[in-house]
């Protein structure tokens, strides 16, 4: 893959490290160390995940148009070992050289002496300001929080033996950010004040996820925290806005495609969070917009055309929403809605990944799969929360409910037949006392009608059957739409007065 900047290169290397950690069975640690001695930064990314294979690094392409030679010399120093290896392999890889010269330099291996561990360390030197790099790395880690990659059931940390120079030091164990990956970001600034370790990365609360939670459960939990922290603008959950959990409604949908010889199995997970908050001090209304975060193979990704197409082709009207536009904003897609209620906010995250890792990532999920995933999430939301995302049609029909209820209540209350009235009271679950006012009856009928409309709005169109008829012995023979009476006698207008 093409690398176009040092930031992207570093992010890519960290991302690979995360994937390796994800694949390993146990609790891992990831460490990113930035040693700054201006103008050079020595970046060291180490993890205790599965050992890496060289193809990962050799596949990186770096041409002169991307990263200039003054920023990076093209050299990667790699140390890696798998659980089954009995040595730690050490390489230097020069990505700048021409094909033949782009050679691996094998350096002497380091014996493991029967210790069982795995890990990788990648080092490189770049010329960049530390703040620019830091910003991107922090942003990456914050996004990764949403994924909440699984935690191991074994709580023990793999012991890591320190060997000489540049292997990850057995530093203090921080709170996990990826729940199985104890991660730390260490910055050592070589300046007048000497060596300073800044642990930039902040702990977060434990939440009740365990190893057996599915990926989508984690994604839900991650998005929930993201929203509760006001989209990562806070470090902790905001207590004043979300004092009750009901204010935040989350649902998910998973769509997967079959594996075949032509394409790998793909999974699309979509999570949608709807928060209903009245205006509060800390909540700045972001208007009618939704940022759709995208992840691909457990890593933050850019927005694909397929995804934009999927988002624009969904029938939002059946969920009571109207889409104005969906735009690619590089690291997320921005959806603009036409008139959301002012207190309502929608957040969305879409994660596409291959069932098998590693693999050749040639196939992108098509828009049908993404659309299916998002629709499943929307339907799930509607299913779990009555009255949410009511289609425009249902809202319109609900507006007629008071008048219908009023008519029926009128009939009931103007009847002198006591048996009839008491039967109606029973059906409406009202008390049998005579003193029930019209308003009570009317309100009860209205409630029932609205609840039926809302419930039935959730059913997909296909299974909606014709409503039962009012008089049971009538069976329809054909259902023509109601017709104009006058059609039969077209002359019933001006020439002849209407028959009484």
């Amino acid at each position: 893959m093409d690398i176009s900047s040092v930031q992207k290169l570093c992010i890519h290397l960290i991302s690979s490290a995360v994937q390796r950690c994800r694949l390993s069975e146990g609790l891992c640690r990831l460490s990113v160390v930035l040693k700054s001695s201006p103008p050079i930064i020595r970046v060291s990314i180490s993890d205790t995940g599965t050992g890496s294979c060289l193809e990962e690094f050799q596949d990186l392409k770096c041409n002169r148009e991307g990263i200039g030679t003054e920023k990076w010399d093209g050299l990667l120093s790699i140390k890696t070992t798998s659980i089954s290896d009995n040595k730690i392999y050490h390489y230097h890889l020069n990505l700048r050289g021409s094909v033949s010269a782009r050679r691996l330099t094998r350096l002497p291996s380091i014996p493991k002496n029967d210790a069982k561990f795995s890990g990788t360390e990648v080092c490189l030197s770049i010329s960049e300001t530390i703040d620019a790099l830091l910003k991107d790395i922090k942003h990456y880690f914050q996004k990764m929080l949403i994924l909440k990659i699984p935690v191991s059931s074994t709580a023990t940390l793999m012991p890591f033996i320190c060997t000489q120079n540049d292997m990850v030091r057995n530093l203090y164990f921080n709170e996990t950010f990826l729940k199985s990956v104890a991660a730390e970001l260490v910055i050592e600034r070589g300046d007048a004040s000497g060596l300073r370790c800044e642990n930039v990365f902040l702990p977060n609360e434990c939440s009740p996820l365990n190893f057996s939670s599915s990926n989508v459960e984690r994604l839900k939990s991650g998005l929930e925290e993201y929203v509760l922290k006001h989209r990562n603008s806070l470090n902790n959950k905001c207590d004043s806005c979300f004092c009750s959990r009901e204010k935040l409604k989350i649902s998910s949908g998973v769509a997967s495609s079959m594996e075949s010889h032509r394409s790998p199995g793909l999974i699309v997970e979509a999570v949608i969070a709807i928060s209903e908050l009245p205006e509060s001090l800390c909540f700045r209304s972001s208007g009618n917009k939704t940022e759709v975060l995208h992840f691909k193979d457990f890593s933050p990704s850019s927005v694909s055309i397929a995804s934009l197409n999927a988002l624009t082709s969904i029938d939002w009207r059946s969920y009571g929403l109207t889409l104005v536009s969906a735009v690619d904003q590089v690291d997320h897609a921005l959806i603009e809605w036409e008139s959301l209620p002012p207190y309502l906010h929608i957040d969305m995250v879409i994660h596409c990944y291959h069932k098998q890792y590693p693999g050749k990532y040639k196939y992108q999920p098509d828009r049908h799969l993404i659309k299916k995933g998002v629709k499943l999430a929307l339907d799930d939301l509607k299913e779990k929360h009555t009255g949410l995302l009511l289609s425009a049609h249902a809202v319109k029909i609900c507006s007629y409910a008071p008048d219908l209820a009023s008519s029926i209540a009128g009939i009931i209350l103007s009847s002198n037949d006591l048996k009839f009235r008491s039967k109606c009271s029973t059906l409406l679950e009202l008390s049998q006392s005579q003193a029930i006012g019209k308003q009570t009856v009317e309100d009860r009928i209205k409630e029932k009608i609205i609840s039926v409309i809302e419930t039935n709005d959730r059913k997909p169109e296909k299974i909606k059957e014709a409503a039962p008829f009012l008089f049971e012995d009538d069976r329809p023979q054909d259902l023509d739409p109601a017709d104009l009476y006058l059609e039969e006698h077209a002359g019933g207008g001006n020439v002849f007065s209407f028959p009484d």
Partner: protein
Amino acid sequence: MDDLSKSSMKFFSDQQLCFADILLPHEVQARIQVAVLNFLKILSSPDPEISDLPLINRKSSNSRVSEGILTDVSWIFLSHSFCSRSLMKANATKAFIRVWKVMEMCFEFLTQEKRVTQRELFYKLLCDSPHYFSSQLQVNRTIQDVVALLRCSRYSLGIMASSKGLVAGRILLQEPNQEAVDCSACGSSGYAISGDLNLLESLIMKTDARYIVVVEKHAIFQRLAEDHVFNQIPSILLTAKGYPDIATRFLLHRMSRAFPDLPILALVDWNPAGLAILSTYKFGSIGMGLEAYRYACNVKWLGLRGDDLQLIPQQSLAPLKPRDLQIARSLISSTTLQDNYRQELAVMMQSGQRAEIEALYSNGYDYLGKYLAKKIVQANYI
């Protein structure tokens, strides 16, 4: 006709008949109550829905003809095809609610034992629910929906049809406990037919006429009444001033049963609309098909007919209008039209012309009476 529905000997075609019962107020209220109970039952059921309203289809596709076998009267009736009004159909929601609103209002009137006209009902609904009712036509249509839903006659709902009909001629009509009215002495305006069907039912009728003449237009009726044509040929004159309303047809039907030997002859304009009016007296209508079949009478077409055209000057012929053609088309497609009527209609269409009865005046003001008398005596009617 009513006897037929009660008789144990039901023809196959009668099983297909859907009719509106003539019911007492409390019976209609009972049906409305059943409607409410069923609606609530389905609304509160474990699998709740908002029930649709099944209405008998008032379309030609649902109309059938009962050919007169034992009698010489054929009639149109409606069969068991339904259309439904649903709350959930986006454009039909208001129509659905209109039916309920009319039912509510009728229920109230029935409790108070009041009778209202369609016009009064319209104004009441307009005040009550202006969003739903915007015209008399809509109200009338909704009333027919309620008739089709509850299968009871409009009159049973407490809605009186205001009548336009007039009677003149050699007949005595007596309301119970009132003086008899001699319709030959009513002058040119005749006796106004009430819209109250119960009252019409209770009228005591006596006549020495030999014919009943149904006249399309008021002006012609007035002319004939003024000229005392009914004395020259003993007859009864009847008009609905155009398209016949239920009350007029009701009375005509009563007369035809009370005086079965009197042929009923129709005097209409020579155009498709005139034939349509004749057909309505003769067979009933689809629009009120659940009730109208009861009042079908064996009406014969006296004039104007194709062979009368020689009696009128060429200039008095006018071209057929698009409306006329529409009516003609729907008449042709109706199964009830007998062949000789079809032929007349075909001639009308081919010539593209129409003629009014008044055209006969070109031969003199008293010509109409003579024309009528001559045709009757010659039994020149089909």
